[in-house]
C-alpha cells in the first residue's frame, strides 16, 4: 500500500482543520477505507489521512434529553451488545450485530458504517480498472454488465451502485438525526447526494453523534446476505412502528437507503396481519426497475422478491 501521512487528531477542531487541505480523507475504524486504498480503487490516492479514532469522548451510548445519543466512534459491537439499544431500539441493535464479522464489528464504528462508500464491483475493481461514471467516467459498466447486486430502483445519474450499510436503514426507520461538525441532518437526507458522493458531508465535515428520538414502539431489522458470517447485504430492511405509524427502509436496493413510503401508507393506521404485510411488501417494490437476467448474469429481479419479503417480515415482527 502506498504511504500516506497520518494525522491523529486529538480534537474535533484539529480533525476538521486537517481535513480542509486537498487530498485528505478521514478514517475511523478503517475497515472500509483501508481496503479501498490497498486495492487502489479510487482514481486519486489521498496524500493524508486524518484519524478520528484518537479523538476522545466520541464513543458513547446514552439516553439524554428524551433521545438516544450515540457517539460517532462507538464500535458496532458495543451497539449490538448494548442492553439499552437492544431493549428500545431493537432494529438498530440487530443491524449492528449483522454487520460484517465479529472482528470488523470490534473495530468498525457507527460513523464509519454510515459513511462508507457505495458498493459496486465495477467501481471497486482493483487498480481503478473501470473508469466508471461514479469516478467521473462516461458510462456505468454495471448497466451493461453483471448487475446482480445492483439497484432495483434505477440509477442516480446513471450510477446503479448501492448503499450497503446495515445500520443506515435502521437509523432512517428510527427517524434518527445525524449530527456533524456543521449541521444536523435528518437520517433519510444524509445519503441524498449525487455521485460521486455517498453522503452529503463536505470533505471537512465529520459526523460527531447520532441522535434517535425516544422510541416506544416495535422495530425489526432483517438482513439477507449470501453468508451469515461476513457479507454485505443483498437486501436489508428495517421497520419501526409506533402508534400505528410505520417507517420502513430498505437498503442495498438503491443509491441510498430507500424509504418505502408506499409500504408505510399501507400499514399506517391499520391492523397488522399477514395480508396487510404482504400488501405492504408488494407496495414497497412497486415501480421497481430491476434488471432482468441476461446470460450468466441473473440480473437483479431476485432482489425484488427478497425486498418484498423482508418488508413483509419486518412488519409482521412489529405486530
Amino acid at each position, binding site marked *: 500500500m502506498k504511504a500516506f501521512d497520518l494525522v491523529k487528531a486529538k480534537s474535533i477542531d484539529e480533525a476538521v482543520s486537517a481535513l480542509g487541505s486537498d487530498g485528505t480523507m478521514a478514517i475511523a475504524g478503517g475497515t472500509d477505507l483501508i481496503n479501498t486504498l490497498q486495492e487502489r480503487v479510487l482514481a486519486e490516492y489521498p496524500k493524508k489521512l486524518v484519524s478520528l479514532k484518537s479523538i476522545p469522548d466520541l464513543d458513547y451510548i446514552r439516553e439524554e434529553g428524551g433521545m438516544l445519543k450515540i457517539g460517532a466512534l462507538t464500535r458496532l459491537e458495543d451497539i449490538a451488545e448494548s442492553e439499552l439499544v437492544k431493549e428500545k431500539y431493537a432494529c438498530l441493535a440487530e443491524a449492528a450485530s449483522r454487520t460484517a464479522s465479529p472482528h470488523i464489528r470490534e473495530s468498525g464504528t457507527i460513523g464509519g458504517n454510515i459513511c462508507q462508500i457505495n458498493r459496486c*464491483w465495477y467501481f471497486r475493481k*482493483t*487498480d481503478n480498472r473501470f473508469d466508471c461514471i461514479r469516478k467521473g467516467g462516461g458510462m456505468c*459498466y454495471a448497466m*451493461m454488465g*453483471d448487475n446482480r447486486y445492483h439497484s432495483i430502483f434505477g440509477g442516480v445519474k446513471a450510477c446503479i451502485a448501492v448503499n450497503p450499510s446495515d445500520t443506515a436503514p435502521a437509523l432512517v426507520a428510527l427517524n434518527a438525526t445525524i449530527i456533524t461538525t456543521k449541521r444536523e441532518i435528518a437520517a433519510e437526507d444524509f445519503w441524498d447526494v449525487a455521485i460521486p458522493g455517498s453522503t452529503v458531508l463536505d470533505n471537512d465535515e465529520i459526523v460527531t453523534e447520532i441522535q434517535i428520538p425516544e422510541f416506544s414502539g416495535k422495530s425489526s431489522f432483517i438482513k*439477507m446476505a*449470501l453468508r451469515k458470517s461476513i457479507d454485505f447485504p443483498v437486501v436489508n430492511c428495517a421497520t419501526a412502528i409506533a402508534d400505528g405509524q410505520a417507517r420502513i427502509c430498505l437498503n442495498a436496493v438503491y443509491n441510498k437507503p430507500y424509504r418505502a413510503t408506499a409500504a408505510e401508507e399501507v400499514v399506517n393506521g391499520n391492523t397488522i396481519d399477514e395480508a396487510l404485510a404482504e400488501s405492504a411488501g408488494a407496495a414497497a417494490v412497486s415501480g421497481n426497475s430491476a434488471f432482468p437476467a441476461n446470460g450468466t448474469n441473473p440480473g437483479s429481479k*431476485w432482489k425484488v422478491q427478497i425486498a418484498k419479503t423482508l418488508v413483509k417480515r419486518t412488519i409482521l415482527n412489529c405486530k
Partner: protein
Amino acid sequence: MADLVLNKVARPNRECDPDYSKDFNVVGKSGVRRIDGYEKASGTAVYSLDFTFPGTLYARMLSCPHANASIKSMDTSKAEAYTGVRDVLRYDNPDPAVAAIIPSQGYFEGKMMGVIIVADTDEIAQEALRLVEIEWDVLPFTMYPPEDQERIQSTNKGDIQQGFAEADQIIEFTYSRKEDAGHVEPNNTNVSWKDDHYEYAQVGQWNNLQAAQWFTPNSNAIKPGGVSQARGYQHPVYQGGSFGLGITLTQQLFKITAVLSQRTKRPVKLLCSLQQSYYSFVSSDCGEEYFKVGFKNDGTITAVQNDPTFHVMPYYYGLLHLVENTNISNLQCNSPSNRFPGANRPDTGPYRCEQRPPVTGLNLVTNHVAAALGMDPTEVALKNDGYGGEGQEYMKQFRLDHGFPDRDSLQECVAAAKEAIDFDNVWHAAGEKTLPDGRKHGIGFAWDHEWNDAIWSGTGAVTMLLDGTAQIIGNHIDVGLNGASTYCQVAAEELGLKFEDVYFKQNAEGNNIQLKGPSSSTNACVNGWIVKKACKNIRAQMLETATQGVIVDYYGGELPTGEPGAAIPTPDPLFPDLQPEDLDIKDSVIFEKSNPENKHTVLELLGQTYLASTRWTQTPFFSFELYNNGQNLDMPHRHRLCRQAHFCEVAVDTETGEIEVLKVVNVNDVGKALSPESVAGQQYGGSIMGISRGKHEEEVYDPPTGVRLNGNLLDYKVSTVRDCGPIDTIAVETALGYGPYGACGLGECNSDEMSPILGPAVQNAISVWIDDFPITPDKVLKALGKI
C-alpha cells in the same frame, strides 16, 4: 540389481497391512500434543510472507488488465528513474532466457506479464510499476469453448446402447460448476542466489527442492554455474490457506525470482497481489456435463453416458468415480478432443482436488435415479456399489484375496450415517416436509470411495538419539491437519516409545529428504508408511542389540599396526540369554514378554551405545526409507475399498431462496484413524469447503470485457465455520485401506462429496432439481417460479 531396485520402487503394496489388528498404544489415541500447535496458535509460525533474507530486494510484476492483450510498446523510463528501483526486467529483454520468463501477451485478465520491477521496498516496487506506460493491443477473447467441439469416446465400457435398451427408465440432466481455487495466502517467493548455492523459501504446496529442481536443468538463465540440487537450501515455511497443486505458477515464480537474485546479486522477494494469487489458478475447471442415465425400477443403473464441456482444461470427467465405485457395466464418456479450448480464463490446476467433477457426476447420477424412483438414495448407492462393473461378490473375493477384513464399507458407513441423522424420522419424500417457520425441509445424501494412499512417493529417515528419544528426519508439506503429530504417533507405536519421546520438526537448511512430496495429497498414509517401515527397522536393530550387545569391530581388538589396542569397554547385552523375539518395547521400556519385570529402559540401551562407541556421534539406530505408490490414482488390482456416506439437512426459504444448512453428518471409513483429531478436523474442514462450493462459490466475469468481477475474498463467497450448522463427524475403521494399519486418505474427500450434496437436499425440499451450481437464492427463486 537395477531390476531389483526398480521392482521395489515401482510396485505399491496391494495387500492389507497385517498390523491392522494389533493392540494399539499410541496410534489412534486422542489428545496427543499437537506439535505445530503452539506456533500456529501463538502467531509465531513463520509463513513465506513473514520470511525475508537479510538485504532483501522486493519485486512486483505487471498484471494484464485485459482478457486478451499484447504489448505494442512499453516505456519504463519513469520507473527506471524512480528512486529505489534496482532493476527493471522487460518482456523484450535482449537475453532470450530472461525474456522467456516474462510473456508479452496476457491471455486472461490478471495474467502476470510484461515487466518486473525490483526495488529497495515493496512500496517502491509497486509505485514504480504504476509509472510504466504501455500501449496495448487488445485482442478478441472468449470465455467459453465453442459449442460444436469435436468429441472422442474417452471411456467406452460395455455396450451403452444395450444398457439403455435394458433400462426401465431413462433420465437426462446437465449440471454446471463455476467455482475457483479460493486462494487465500498471497503467493510470494524468496530466493537468495549465490555463486555456488541458493537458498529459498516459497509459498505453495510444492515448496520443496524436487519441485524447484525439476526445471533447473532446462534453464540456462538460472543455472549458469550448474548449481546442483545438493547446493539448494530450502527454508521450509508453514502453509496458509491454499489447497492443491500450484506447481506451474510456483515453479515459474521460483524461476523468475532466481533470475532477479542472480541479476541483482541480492536476495529477492517476489510478491504477488492477492488478485494475482487469486487468478493464478481456477479449480479443476468450470464447465457443464451432460448425463443420460438408464436404470431399472429397482434402482439398478444399466447405462451412463457423459458429455462434458469444460471452460479451460479438465483433469477428470464425470465417469471416473462411476468406474471406481460401481457395478455399472455400460459407461460412455464423449469428451472434447481438444483439452485446451482456449477460453481467456486463468489456468486450471488440480486445486481443491481435481476429483470434484467425477465425484459430482457419481452423486448426481445416483441421486437423480433415486429421486426419479422415489427411493431412499442410500439404497440406490448400495445396489450399485462395486468396482469397474463388478459387484459385491467380486469385491468380497478381492478383499479376502488381499488379506483385508471381510467388511462391507458402504453398508457400515450408511448405517452409521443413518443412525446419526436419525434417518427414519427425518427422511421424507420430496417436498413433503415444512418446518414450523414455513421453510421447506430437505435432506441430501452423498457417497463415494475414500481416497487411498496413492499417489507418488516419499522418503524419510528415523534415528534414535542418545537421550532415548527418536527423531523423524525429513521435510513435509504443511497441509492437512496435525501431520507432524500423526507421524510421531506412528513412530511411537512402532518403536514402543512414549509419544513424547518422538519428535518431528521441519528440517531446514538444505535437507533433501522429502517426506510426501512433491504432491501434497495423501501425506498421512505415505509418510505413515515411511515412518512405520523405518521404525520397524530400528526396533529390530534395538532388540538385536539388547540381546547380543553392542557390536564394535575394532580390528579384532588390534590396531591397524597389529599391536594390541586399548581396551574397549563393551558392555554385556541387557538381555544376554534372550532372543529379540522374546522381547517387546512399550512406553519406552524394553521387557521380556514372558517376564515383564525383566526390563530395561530404551535410554539404558542407548546409554550402552554411548559407552561402547558413539559418544561423539549419534546412535547406530538409524533407518532411511523410501515409499513409492506409483503415479496412478487407481491401479489395477488395487481397488478402493473404503467408502464414505454423508447427509445434509437444509431449510429452504421459498420466499427469499435462501438455503440454510441445518445439520451435516460425515461418516468416513478411514480404515484406521491414525489421529482421531486429524480425522475430525479434515471432516469439519471438508464439509465447510464442500458446502461453500455448492452453495455460493462462483467466479463472475464481466461479459463485455472478460474482466473478473469477484477475484477477492469479499465478493467471491467462501463459507466460514459460522455458515454451516452443526457437523457430526464419525470415523468408521474397517482397515480396508492400503495405508499403514489399513488406513486410507481423507483430506480431499469431504470437500468433494459435500459440494454436490445441496443438489439432492434442495430437490428433497422443493421437489425441483437445481443442477446449476452454486445453488444461489436467485436460482431457487427461479426454480420456484418466483421470478
